[in-house]
């Protein structure tokens, strides 16, 4: 008991650190994906009215009057920009509708319904008000719906997104696909290298390990750009092909700015994450077992498949999980070499984080990605048993 407490005490600093610096911030961020009170906070008159309104019937004069009051106030408080940005996410064009109406709201007179519709015909449309109703809700499924190509409407219904705007599910699927391919390539390329490393004399091993680690210490941007120089139409590889007459000068391969480029560059960048756990496990596999298998009559393949490979499974497990999970979050490399069919969901998350400042949608997409990866992890555990995973 005391020993266990002591052990717990020793891990406490790390746990506390993880909790404060990782788990809490992640949860707080994900919380944004379902909780957004921008509208409710700054539009105090229209929010309760919109909540009681069902989203189906004709908007009433009371709703218009409450909106007018809020717009005047929001303009005075200089919060109109925040509200307009929030509404724009539910209603493209809603930003300018709000800001331009707010500029003139103070001069409007009752009845406000007529006055507002007169100013901007959009105020007479039911969709405008339904969008406001979605924006006014403090807890909303709207962002989660958007992140899986659904549209949550003000009347409470959920429909599929307009066909021309469906993009998220495609990108989630593509992310899984590219990550899986990269993982497979890393395994195929990394396994022989790790085997070589673990069977060489210590001195040569160290030299080779440095070669494996060297790219690790180089910036991702530099490595990605290097691949562009190698793979592009007038790049090193194509020049070699042409020089040796493999292909004609006008039929050069396109190996970059497409999925091929993404796969090659990502495989190279993630390879060390496969090699290192494999190497760590292979070093502990006694050579005597394979020799015993041979002496009992197994040929090379059988000895490898039945005796050696099973002993390296923990390393394969660790490498596969590590590479796959890292790959799902990659965005710099696909952005630079991905072209039109190398994009991943993380590129869109990056767009909403940095460019459109739509953090709630980024959070919702991040949540979906997290759930997806956790599901795959669970599946992997069921199939291969995570307790067999070992990092060395």
């Amino acid at each position, binding site marked *: 008991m005391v020993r266990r407490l002591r052990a717990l005490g020793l891990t406490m600093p790390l746990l506390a650190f993880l909790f404060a610096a990782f788990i809490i911030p992640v949860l707080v961020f994900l919380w944004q994906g379902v909780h957004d009170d921008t509208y409710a906070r700054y539009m105090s008159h229209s929010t309760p009215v919109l909540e009681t309104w069902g989203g189906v019937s004709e908007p009433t004069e009371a709703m218009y009057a409450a909106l007018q009051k809020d717009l005047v106030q929001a303009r005075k408080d*200089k*919060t109109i*920009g*925040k509200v*307009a*940005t929030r509404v*724009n*996410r539910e209603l*493209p*064009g*809603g*930003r*300018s509708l709000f800001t331009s109406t707010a500029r003139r709201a103070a001069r409007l007179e009752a009845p406000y319904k007529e006055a507002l519709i007169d100013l901007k015909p959009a105020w007479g449309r039911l969709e405008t008000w339904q969008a406001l109703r979605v924006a006014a809700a403090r807890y909303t499924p709207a962002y989660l719906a958007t992140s899986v190509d659904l549209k949550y409407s003000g009347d409470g219904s959920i429909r599929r997104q307009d066909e*021309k*705007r*469906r*993009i998220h599910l*495609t*990108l989630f699927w*593509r992310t899984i696909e590219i990550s899986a391919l990269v993982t497979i390539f890393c395994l195929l390329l990394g396994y022989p290298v790790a085997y070589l490393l673990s069977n060489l004399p210590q001195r040569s091993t160290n030299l080779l390990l440095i070669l494996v680690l060297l790219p690790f210490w180089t910036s991702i941007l530099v490595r990605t750009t290097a691949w562009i120089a190698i793979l*592009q*139409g*007038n*790049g090193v590889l194509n020049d070699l092909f042409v020089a040796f007459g493999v292909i004609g000068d006008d039929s050069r391969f396109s190996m970059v*700015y497409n999925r091929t480029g993404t796969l090659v560059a990502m495989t190279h960048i993630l390879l060390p994450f496969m090699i290192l756990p494999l190497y760590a496990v292979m070093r502990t596999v006694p050579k005597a077992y394979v020799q015993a298998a041979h002496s009992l009559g197994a040929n090379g393949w059988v000895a490898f498949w039945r005796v050696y490979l099973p002993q390296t499974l923990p390393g394969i497990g660790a490498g596969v999980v590590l590479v796959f999970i890292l790959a799902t979050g990659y965005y710099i490399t696909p*952005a*630079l070499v991905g*072209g*039109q*069919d190398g*994009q991943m969901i993380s590129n*869109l998350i990056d*767009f909403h*984080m*940095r*460019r*459109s*400042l*739509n*953090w709630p949608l980024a959070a919702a997409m991040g949540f979906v990605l997290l759930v997806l990866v956790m599901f795959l992890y669970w599946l992997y555990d069921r199939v291969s048993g995570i307790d067999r995973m070992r990092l060395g």
Partner: protein
Amino acid sequence: MWLAAPDALAGDLTVVSWGGAYTKSQVEAYHKPWMARTGHRILSEDYNGGVSEIKSQVLAGNVTWDVIDLDSAEGLLACDEGLLEEIDSSILPPAPDGTPAEQDFFEGGIGSCMIGTVVGAMVFAYDQSRLSPGPTTIRDFFDLEKFPGRRGLRRSPKINLEMALAADGVPLDQVYAVLATAEGVDRAFARLDGIKDQVVWWEAGAQPPQLLADGEVVMSTAYNGRIFNAYALEGRSLAIVWDAQILDFGNWAIVKGAPNLELALDFIRFASMPENMAAQVSWISYAPARRSALEMVGTYHANPELDMISHLPTSPDNMKTAIWQDTEFWADHLDELNERFNAWLVGE
């Protein structure tokens, strides 16, 4: 955050900009003379655009940046979100002939949180050693029969949709009115469809000159300053086509709660003097945001023979075929059109 303790002392002004030749031009034209005049130090930081860093600083209540150089769309977004200080435009000095700043700046150059500093253009460029005679109009860019070969375009709906409509025959002053309709958007995408399988999509501003130099593309959209650098400084045989160039401001803004608000205002006022704006043009081919500065523009620092005026987006000749980017339009429609654009990209 004590972890990221900046080494700024009280009274040091932090100015954040895009780095490279652009920041260099600001250092030469603004930072050095301002430091000499006021005795305060400027810490120059680089960033890659985007407003998430400002948002994080403001939300965390730990603002270390004072002045930042933002493009108009991101400036508007940050202003809407309350991440920027409002700037009273009465601090801006008048033109030498007494014209008030409000009339001397190009229209849209003075916002409630932003003061324009340069006018940059998105143009398309080609390599003269590979294409002769070269393209002359935006139609040529979309014409694969007349000019076969790959095209470089930025992976974003912005710029591309406008240029596609211009190439489709929409008069330049009506591009945004057409783009605001569903049919207009369809029309733009249909035009892009025509070159889709020949496009190399770029992401960073440094890529287009490289793509052109490597022969990966025969034409590419690009920032005019990047192409200028390639031919004026590096001696490459690149040329700019100014037809349907799309203009946007680079703007000074002050982060909400900036530690040195007064100094920041003084810096922006100083940098907005026409003669200082004109000095910046000796270092980079982005035009000054005020008309009076355009008349004082001189020659290139690396080549005293090279008059800068004809290389600027706002020179009288180049202005004839210019479109001013409509920031309000993109604030309304970027999210929607970005989804549509990405769906279009992955579609067949």
